[in-house]
């Protein structure tokens, strides 16, 4: 039973997590007294208190110290903070951490195999020089994996359209498209 179902069952008032009043804490401070959430990150269940104002990105970086996910614009425009939420790509900067309660998050750290072997897409980014400075790369790779799984990586035009939410200021786009073209058929073989 997933947590959503649990909440439906165990919450008689059918409304949860009503905080009492606006607090005085500083935004996103780790460990500040906040609201409790229960979340699975990279297959590990975590229970933590978060400031109501914190984003899912703040949670991942500042509370869980998973620094792969990057803060670029912090306004949903650049895609550097892309993670998977219940298997779908989202920009973690535009989501309240509270809204990820009871859900499953995968970050770039959760993409490699249990023995540390790189995901097909990670290796393809290396093979095709699909990065220069690397800052956008974790978001690019999370988006690229989702792009393939969604079935949008079957043509260059499709890849360009469905990767448009991830900006690369170094302009490594040609390599990124090549990496995705290379990884897509091999991912389809390698993934369940």
């Amino acid at each position: 039973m997933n947590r959503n179902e649990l909440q439906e069952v165990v919450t008689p008032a059918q409304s949860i997590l009503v905080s009492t009043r606006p607090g005085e804490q500083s935004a996103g401070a780790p460990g500040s007294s906040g609201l409790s959430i229960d979340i699975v990150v990279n297959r590990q269940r975590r229970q933590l208190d978060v400031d109501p104002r914190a984003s899912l990105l703040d949670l991942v970086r500042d509370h869980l110290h998973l620094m792969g996910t990057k803060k670029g614009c912090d306004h949903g425009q650049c895609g550097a903070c892309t993670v998977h939420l219940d298997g779908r790509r989202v920009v973690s900067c535009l989501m309240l951490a509270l809204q990820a309660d009871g859900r499953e998050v995968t970050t770039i750290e959760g993409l490699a195999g249990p023995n540390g072997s790189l995901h097909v897409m990670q290796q393809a980014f290396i093979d095709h020089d699909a990065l220069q400075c690397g800052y956008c790369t974790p978001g690019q790779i999370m988006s690229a994996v989702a792009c393939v799984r969604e079935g949008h990586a079957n043509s260059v035009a499709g890849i360009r359209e469905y990767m448009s939410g991830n900006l690369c200021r170094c302009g490594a786009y040609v390599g990124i498209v090549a990496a995705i073209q290379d990884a897509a058929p091999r991912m389809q073989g390698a993934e369940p």
Partner: protein
Amino acid sequence: MRSFAYARPLTVMAAVQALADASPHARIIAGGTTLYDLMKLNIEAPQALVDVSRLGELTTFDTSGTRELVFGAMARMSDIAADRTLQTDYPALAESLWLAASPQVRNMATVGGNLLQRTRCAYFRGGAPYPCNKRQPGSGCAAIGGLDRSHAILGTSTSCVAVYPGDWAVALAAFDAQLDTVSPRGERTIPIDELHREPGETPHLETILKPDELIVRIRVPVTVAGRASTYHKIRDRASYAFALASAAVALRVDGDTVREARIALGGVATRPWRARDAERALMGGALTEGSARAAGELAFTAARTGQYNRFKVELGARTIAEALMIAKGRAKTS
């Protein structure tokens, strides 16, 4: 960012109760892609949030009905954009969704919340030192006489020229969609054409919704004009940009004769903009490149341009003309 109280109801009934209990300064949050963004900019500073993103009963949609299409307000933009029936029978609706935002944002944003997306006017978002009547009523408008390239030329006032930025509401306007809402005072139905206000002297009031009123459902009457439809969106770049001009067009033709024409505009107006004069001009005539162009020009006769957005008159007319010819092509093949 100011802190806030937070409630997460799990049913519509509980949501209505939470809205009744919340402070008058509470805001409804769904996907959060507009509201949380503006909270980070301190443009929105709600004292309380009622999170409606877990109202499972509002996430379903049905495009197979014989009288109307029904979309739960909490359905994600990406899920509806991917619906095969919609892509075939109402391409304008599907296109307006998948040409909007980015794949990530479409996975988060809901089709109810998207209607209430706020303007991207840089003076509204940018804050001090620029005045903005929308952000702070009575303070003035920096866009008028300022860098107004992206701003509206239809439905403007001396208080505000900000563009309504959405695509989906424009397509819904072309199809005369209706919205069902609930609030502590009960339920009501609002024609999409009445949802958004022109700015007038009160640009901070963008819709007729009350703060505690929740959109639960969007309904679109079935029409054969859906098949011969398109959402044509012209942008500064090929993907992931707001419209400089867009047109949602749907047609019913009999041979070469136009029996029904529906045209709504985005990117050029302060609200989703139905071009009824252009529609009437096309009725009963043959749709040609010439008549499409004439209809396009007619839609902008009331345009008021600023310093840098004069090009939108020509661009908008051409966008309508192209959209009409795309829709006509689909009428032939359907």
